[in-house]
């Protein structure tokens, strides 16, 4: 698939209203809202590598069932068989395949393709850890969770992989909760000690 066709393909599926944000993110990594025309211009100005990174990054936001469907359909599509996918999944699949082809000089390698598809897993942070974060006072809870999520998804996960990223996340959560809970524990222990002295 040529670059022009590829961009037309992305445009086709990005323009579906439920998927508009993909187009917006394509053009603006900071998430600011742009018109489609600006998106298109920005996409034309991106290098192939940037476009690949965009697709991979966006694939992280796919629901896990959808990512699984794409993964299952990929080998069949590579064999030239018909696959049953919704438009958005097909869009992702085509985009991933096209980028992959372009990178490896129009010779798609199923192994390479599988590697690319692995990135379609949603990098969800550990659920239990996220739940524990509700022990943090409301004032800064949302901001702290947001910062943790951002670092987990954008820096730790790509650098160290899913397993270590999850360990890192749990460690951060334990420390964060510890910092907030410890003064409270100290106060309770202090009160208990005072009560013990008074009670004598």
């Amino acid at each position, binding site marked *: 698939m040529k670059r022009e066709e590829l961009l037309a393909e992305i445009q086709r599926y990005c323009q579906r209203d439920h998927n508009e944000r993909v187009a917006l993110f394509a053009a603006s990594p900071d998430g600011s809202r742009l018109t489609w025309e600006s998106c298109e211009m920005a996409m034309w100005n991106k290098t192939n590598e940037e476009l690949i990174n965009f697709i991979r990054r966006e694939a992280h936001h796919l629901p896990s069932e959808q990512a699984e469907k794409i993964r299952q359909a990929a080998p069949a599509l590579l064999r030239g068989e018909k696959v049953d996918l919704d438009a958005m999944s097909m869009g992702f699949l085509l985009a991933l395949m096209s980028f992959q082809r372009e990178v490896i000089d129009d010779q798609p390698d199923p192994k390479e393709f599988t590697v690319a598809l692995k990135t379609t897993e949603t990098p969800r942070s550990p659920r239990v850890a996220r739940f524990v974060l509700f022990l943090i006072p409301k*004032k800064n809870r949302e901001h702290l969770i947001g910062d943790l999520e*951002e670092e987990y998804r954008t820096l730790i996960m790509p650098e160290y992989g899913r397993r270590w990223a999850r360990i890192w996340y749990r460690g951060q959560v334990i420390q964060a909760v510890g910092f907030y809970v410890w003064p409270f524990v100290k106060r309770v222990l202090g009160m208990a000690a005072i009560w013990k002295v008074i009670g004598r």
Partner: protein
Amino acid sequence: MDYLGEFELLVMLAVLRLGSNAYGMMIRREIEDVAERSASLGAVYTTLERLEDKGFLSSAVGEATEERGGRAKKYFKVTASGAGAVKRSVKSTDAMKAGLGPAWGGAR
């Protein structure tokens, strides 16, 4: 007059260094990268809250992005009294250092 603790000073300096991009994650990374000291996000946030209560920092809620799960950022800015506190801390550290030998970072 409130003085800054060691970690508080690091957080204040990180906020100053980052300028308009000073929010939790960036402050934590700045401390780790520049001061080469590990800092958890929990430690950074409790310190930021304390500094805000002391009036050394002010905050503003920023934009929510997709990679943050749609959660807003909280940007921090050093206030005039915060800047004064940083200057006092740095000055007193420098004054204490001045009497030491070069091996300890002093002038002699």
